[in-house]
């Protein structure tokens, strides 16, 4: 299988990653286009999270290439990669991503503050995103004082506040009941589509995957892009 499909925002080719004797990734392929929502599916332990971490430049693969917007991720320095993550990527995980000592609006504003925005500007933008995720009534609360579903919406708002071109989400609804999970997905994909952000979504929930445009199935560290396989 060849990669770097034309026009892709992020493309990976022949990714390999071993943890001791475990081949977590064993020749994985991946691509996502601007504004596209791609679901990564597959059995537990198949390498989904490892793939996402490699794609996002969090974990370096042992070999293979990852191109983001024409730049080779594996050739960058750590500093360059983290600058890229801060400016272009957003992240949502299953648990515990909000800073417990900060209020919800301070949490959402945090990435903007780290990029040098004033408190006032950052919190104004943060409030706007919280409204889109329907949690603007929680601005003054701390993460410990909100429900799981509300916390995930705050986390999604925080992931989108910098206007990332690519959002990485690993089981973002994994800790939620199904109706809450679906609502979070609905809001997440709506918000991403409205800003033309691409989404890489790891999930084992098919109803959550149904919010994607396309799925990639990982098995034994190898991925199969169903659009190209059929």
């Amino acid at each position, binding site marked *: 299988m060849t990669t770097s499909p034309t026009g892709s925002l992020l493309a990976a080719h022949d990714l390999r990653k071993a943890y001791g004797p475990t081949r977590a990734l064993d020749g994985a392929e991946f691509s996502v286009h601007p504004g596209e929502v791609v679901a990564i599916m597959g*059995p537990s332990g198949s390498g989904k999270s490892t793939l996402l971490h490699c794609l996002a430049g969090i974990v370096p693969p042992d070999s293979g290439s990852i191109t983001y917007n024409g730049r080779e991720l594996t050739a960058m320095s750590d500093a360059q990669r983290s600058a890229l993550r801060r400016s272009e990527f957003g992240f949502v995980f299953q648990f515990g991503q909000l800073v417990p000592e900060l209020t919800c609006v301070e949490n959402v504003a945090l990435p903007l503050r780290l990029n040098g925005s004033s408190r006032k500007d950052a919190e104004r933008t943060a409030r706007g995103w919280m409204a889109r995720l329907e949690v603007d009534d929680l601005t003054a609360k701390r993460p410990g004082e909100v429900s799981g579903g509300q916390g995930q919406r705050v986390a999604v708002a925080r992931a989108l506040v910098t206007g990332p071109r690519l959002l990485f989400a690993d089981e973002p609804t994994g800790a939620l009941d199904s109706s809450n999970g679906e609502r979070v997905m609905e809001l997440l994909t709506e918000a991403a589509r409205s800003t033309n952000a691409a989404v890489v979504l790891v999930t*084992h929930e*098919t*109803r959550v*995957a*149904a919010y994607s445009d396309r*799925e990639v199935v990982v098995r034994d560290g190898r991925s199969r892009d*169903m659009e190209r*396989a*059929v």
Partner: protein
Amino acid sequence: MSIGHTLLGLLESGPRHGYDLKRAFDEKFGHDRPLHYGQVYSTMSRLLKNGLVEVGGVEAGGGPERKRYAITDAGITDVQRWLETPQKPGEYLQSPLYTKVVLALLTRRDAAKILDVQRSEQLRGMRTLTDRKSKGDWADQLICDHALSHLAADLRWLEPTAARLDKLRKAVTR
């Protein structure tokens, strides 16, 4: 679905004309399949014959769609009985997908591919339903949720099956 019982149920809130009945049915229950006028009239004449409805008046110059139907006491009893009778759980022991997988294993074909293609098709259907559910009214949400739950259940069978194809192949070809 029992069209007769559904139309009867719609009449419980008050008498309606034939065209009005069809409209109410399509709006709440028609979804992808609106009723034909022919179905309405054949159903209504059967209900009439069985004494479950009566004709309350015909407008001047009216064809059958101008007939005004009202539910009878026997009709109300019939609806009540139908609502209280549980539906038979679906028959799932004759699944074409099961047959395909077993045949592929028996003939040493690529069963994983069959399941992958099925998953992909299933998700395609789920995407359409999800989209319709997001944009639709309460009726769309309710019916799409029902369909989505069934498609998701098929996938809950598919995933563990895909994960143990090697073992299954040995068992099947023994």
